[in-house]
């Protein structure tokens, strides 16, 4: 019961901040909406100049939508954490009975809410304006979204740990992470397009299995059950590893005094 109250506190704080600040509210859906509009017109153009048998809407626009969802999930976790960095709230926060598991739980729940807002806006635009349909994926869409969600959570917690360890300036590591991963995740092209070394990296990334599987369905081939299994297993493994790493960094910060002198960015 107390854990729920602690998680609710993190969520409530985020609600207060978003409600009072357009600078926080708009990014929840503006950039994703821009992405959908941009890629929507690109797919429309590609459909006009290529074979009618080839529909780029589910191939490209569907991929963009799901990749943006993954990105919003990650940013949902990190932004909630960064609020404590920006407001220099670590002393007040970590001197309360809040446990690290509860804190991470609060970051995840906040991310669920904020990423859902972005997802809804993207779906409305993609379906209403560009006639995107996910029916072609059937029920497989559920595990696809789940794996991308779990991957975003894991990556978000890892990014929080890095900021906690290296100080407020490490925030600038966080924002480009999805862009840096996207070539390896094979969002827009088959894995076979990549050189061998990039394929090795891609196989370590859960989203690559999802986008490969989606392309298989669109090509009329059965999706790989093993691929989905590995995607899910890796996503769960990364969440555990990210949680372990965050806890380890937090303990390091408490041991060295970094929490108490966080703005100094160093414990020595």
């Amino acid at each position, binding site marked *: 019961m107390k854990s729920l*109250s602690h998680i609710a506190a993190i969520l409530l704080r985020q609600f*207060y901040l978003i409600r009072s600040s357009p600078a926080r509210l708009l990014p929840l859906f503006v950039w994703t909406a821009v992405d959908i509009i941009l890629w929507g017109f690109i797919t429309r153009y590609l459909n006009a100049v290529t074979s009618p048998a080839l529909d780029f809407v589910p191939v490209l626009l569907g991929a963009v939508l799901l990749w943006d969802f993954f990105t919003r999930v990650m940013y949902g976790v990190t932004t909630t954490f960064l*609020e404590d960095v920006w407001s220099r709230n670590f*002393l007040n926060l970590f*001197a309360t009975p809040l446990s690290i598991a509860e804190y991470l739980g609060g970051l995840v729940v906040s991310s669920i809410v904020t990423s859902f807002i972005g997802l809804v806006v993207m779906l409305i635009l993609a379906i209403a304006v560009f006639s995107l349909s996910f029916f072609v994926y059937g029920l497989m869409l559920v595990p696809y979204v789940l794996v991308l969600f779990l991957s975003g959570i894991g990556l978000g917690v890892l990014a929080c740990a890095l900021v906690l360890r290296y100080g407020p300036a490490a925030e600038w590591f966080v924002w480009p992470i999805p862009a840096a991963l996207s070539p390896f995740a094979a969002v827009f092209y088959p894995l076979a397009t990549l050189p061998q070394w990039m394929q090795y990296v891609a196989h370590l990334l859960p989203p690559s299995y999802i986008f490969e599987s989606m392309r298989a369905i669109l090509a009329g081939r059965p999706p790989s059950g093993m691929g989905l299994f590995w995607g899910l297993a890796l996503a769960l493994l990364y969440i555990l590893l990210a949680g372990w790493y965050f806890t380890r960094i937090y303990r390091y910060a408490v041991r060295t*005094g970094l929490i108490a002198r966080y703005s100094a960015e160093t414990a*020595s």
Partner: protein
Amino acid sequence: MTTERSGAPRAPAAEKVLTATGLCKCYGRTVAVEGVSFEVGRNEIVGLLGPNGAGKTTIINMVLGILEPTAGTIHIEGIDIARHRSRALARTNFTAVYAPLPGNLTVYQNLRFFGLLYGVDDLARKIDELLEHFEIARFRHTKCGVLSSGEQTRAGLAKALLNQPHLLLLDEPTASLDPASARDIRAKICAFAAQEAVGVLWTSHNMAEVEKVCDRVLFLSHGKILLAGHPQTLPREYGKETLEDLFIAVAKEPLTLGNNET
């Protein structure tokens, strides 16, 4: 108005809310706190005094669980903070001038946020009471970042009393207040300590304030407790007129005073 405590030294309270034993904190080869042991009893206000860098804030951070001691133990009402951190911290709260409430939330939003974190029952009523008590009800929907430093201090104190802590840690709580506000705040804290059976650990550089509010003082120098006693009798024991004279002596001649200690 009845404000500060005064009169003869009082016997230390038998029931301890804070027991620190053999606390040490080292940063590499730098020793910040060394072998510090002390207790805070119920209804007792203990002053933690010393020059800048003596180790006061380091000790407070260790009691708050945001800094791990290199050695030693901390028990809050008998609960080991190293083993049962959440349980111990649920009985504690603090305010410090270097830890203001997030400026991007209103006073009410901050109190609601921290009230949930501390698991406060009947939170809405408690917040209303504290806003009235610290005379900041008119700032209920004002963001903490735009409050004056005195108003921020009051908001911080409201947060510190939200969970009716049994151990209250105050790091220079009146540092940014004018004399009238400081006296008012001191009176409120003393009344809280008396009524709620709470133990208070109080740091201050204002020796007149310490004499008025503290039942006992601990003088820190270079991370060690150099002297301990009642704030009104301790100066004479060391041949000083006032607590401020003693403070200056601790800051300038700690070795001499340490040798006098028996």
